[in-house]
C-alpha cells in the first residue's frame, strides 16, 4: 500500500504500514526524548495530508474543515505576538490571565472547602455519615448539566464560571483527602496524643502531613478538571478568556484560532500541574512522606 491511496482507508488501518515507524533495533539506545517524536510528527503529517485531500473519516469526521497545521502555527504566533493585526492579535495576554484567575479562584475555593471537610469525614464517623450521601448524590452530576441551572441561579459572568470550576475541582480533592485521612497509621495518632497534642492539633500535625500525598494527588486531578471545565465555564458569557476566544473564533468561523485556543488550554493545564507539583516539592523539600 502506498501513501497515495491511504486516503481511501481509515487511519487505524493505514497506520501500521506507514514507513515512518521507529526502528525496533535502536530502541534500547534511543533517548526517551527522541522516542517521543515519531508519533506527534506522524500525527502532524496525517493531519496535513487529511486536510489537503479532504479525507472523510468514520463518525462523519470531514478533515477538509480543519485548518492546516501551518495555519494553526501562524495563528498561534499571532495570538501570542500579534503578527497579523486581527481580532486575535496578542489576545493571549488578556485571555490567559483572565482564565488563569478563574481557574485559580475556583481551585483555591474548592481546596479550602474540600481539604478540611475531607479530613473531618476521614477521621470522624459522624462527619462521614452526615456528608457522604450528599457527596455521592452530587458527584455523578456532570458540570455540563449544571450550566443551565447556574445561568438562572447566578446569571452570566465570572462568578458563574468560578462556581462551575469549584464544583468540578471539589470532588477529586475531597475524595483524595478522605482516603488519605482514613489511612493515617493509628500508632502515629497515639504517639501525638501521648506527647501532649490536642484532638484538633492531631488533625493538623498528624492527619494532614500523613494524608499529604493523597491530598496532593486529589488536588492535581482537581486542577486538571478545572482546566477541562474552563471552556464550558466560559460559555457563561464572560468576555475574555481562553474558552471565550474559542467561542468567538467559532462564531467568525476561524478554525485555526479554535485549535490555537485548544492548544493554549492544554499547555496552560500542563504548566499549572507542573507549578502545583513544584509548589509542593518546595513545601515538603525532601521530607519523606507516607506512601
Amino acid at each position, binding site marked *: 500500500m502506498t501513501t497515495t491511496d491511504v486516503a481511501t482507508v481509515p487511519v487505524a488501518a493505514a497506520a501500521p504500514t506507514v514507513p515512518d515507524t521507529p526502528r525496533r533495533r535502536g530502541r534500547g539506545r534511543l533517548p526517551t526524548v527522541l522516542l517521543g517524536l515519531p508519533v506527534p510528527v506522524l500525527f502532524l503529517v496525517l493531519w496535513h495530508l487529511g486536510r489537503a485531500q479532504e479525507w472523510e473519516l468514520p463518525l462523519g469526521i470531514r478533515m477538509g474543515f480543519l485548518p492546516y497545521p501551518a495555519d494553526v502555527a501562524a495563528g498561534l504566533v499571532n495570538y501570542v505576538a500579534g503578527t497579523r493585526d486581527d481580532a486575535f492579535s496578542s489576545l493571549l495576554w488578556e485571555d490567559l490571565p483572565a482564565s488563569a484567575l478563574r481557574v485559580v479562584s475556583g481551585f483555591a475555593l474548592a481546596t479550602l472547602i474540600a481539604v478540611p471537610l475531607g479530613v473531618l469525614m476521614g477521621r470522624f464517623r459522624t462527619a462521614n455519615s452526615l456528608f457522604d450521601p450528599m457527596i455521592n448524590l452530587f458527584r455523578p452530576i456532570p458540570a455540563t448539566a449544571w450550566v443551565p441551572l447556574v445561568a438562572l441561579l447566578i446569571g452570566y459572568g465570572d462568578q458563574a464560571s468560578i462556581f462551575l470550576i469549584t464544583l468540578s475541582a471539589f470532588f477529586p480533592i475531597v475524595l483524595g483527602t478522605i482516603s488519605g485521612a482514613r489511612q493515617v497509621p493509628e500508632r502515629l495518632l*497515639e*504517639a501525638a496524643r*501521648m*506527647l*501532649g497534642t490536642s484532638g484538633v492539633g492531631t488533625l493538623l500535625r498528624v492527619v494532614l*502531613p500523613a494524608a499529604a500525598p493523597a491530598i496532593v494527588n486529589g488536588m492535581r486531578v482537581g486542577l486538571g478538571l478545572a482546566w477541562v471545565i474552563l471552556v464550558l465555564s466560559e460559555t457563561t458569557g464572560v468576555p475574555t478568556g481562553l474558552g471565550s476566544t474559542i467561542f468567538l473564533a467559532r462564531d467568525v468561523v476561524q478554525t485555526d484560532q479554535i485549535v490555537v485556543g485548544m492548544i493554549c488550554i492544554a499547555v496552560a493545564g500542563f504548566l499549572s500541574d507542573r507549578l502545583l507539583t513544584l509548589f509542593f516539592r518546595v513545601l515538603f523539600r525532601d521530607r*519523606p*512522606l*507516607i506512601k
Partner: protein
Amino acid sequence: MDTEHLSAGRTADVRIAGLSKVYAGGVAAMADVDLTIASGEFVAVVGASGCGKSTLLRILAGFERPSGGVVEVGGTPVTGPGPDRGVVFQDYGLFPWLSVRENVAYGPSRKKLPRAEVAAVTDRFIAAVGLTRFAGKYPAQLSGGMQQRVAIARVLANDPSLLLMDEPFGALDALTRADLQAELKRIHVDTRTTVVFVTHSIEEAVYLADRVVVMTGGASHGVPGSIRRIVPVDLTDRDVTSPAFNAVKREIADLVHTVPATV
C-alpha cells in the same frame, strides 16, 4: 551525661486497684488487677502472649478506658493520654516526615516553651542517646536500634513522670538490644522516672527491674488476664551469668510457664 542531670526528675507513683477490661465484642482481657508502684521504681511485666500486658500498659497510657477499677498516676485518675506519661512502642511510632531533631523537639514544642529552651532540651536528649551526628536524618534513614533511641529521647524530652514501654527492644538484634538495655538503665538511674516495662524476655526483666510482675491467663485461655505474682529482684549487681541472677530467672520462668494450681 553521667554527671549532668537529664531532667527535672519528675516521677510519680502508680495505683491500680480492681482493674478490669472487657473489649468491645466481649473479650475479657483482664480482671482483678491490683498493682502499686512507688515513685522512681522500675517494674517489668512478663507473661505469655495474650495475658493482657499491652492492655495494662495502654490503660495506664490512657489509650484504653478501664471497664472497672481505679487507675491513678501521681494521685490523679487517668482519663486519657497525656505528656506526663511517655509511651515507647515496639514499632517506634516516630513521625516519618520529621527529622530526628524535630521528632525529639515535638513534645517540648507542644508545651509552648521558649524556642531556646526547646532547642536546649532537644539537643540534650539527642546527645543522651548518642545520636547528635544523626540529628538531621529522617527515621527511615536510621536502623531500628537508632529509631528506638529517638523514640526514647522523644518521650524523655517531655520530662514524663511515668515511662511506659511495650516490648521496646523486641524487634532489635541481640547486640543492639543489650546496648539499649544498658542505656535505659543508666537513664533510669539518672532521671528516677517511674518505668513500667513490658517484655517477653525474662532475662531482660530481671536485668532491668526492681520488681517483676508475672501475669497469667488471658482471653485465649478462657480466663481474663491477671497478676500471678510479683517477684522482687533483690540483686545488688545484675551479672546475667551469676547463679543468683539465674535463680531469679528460673523462679519467674516457672511462674510464666506453669498454670496456677487454683485454676
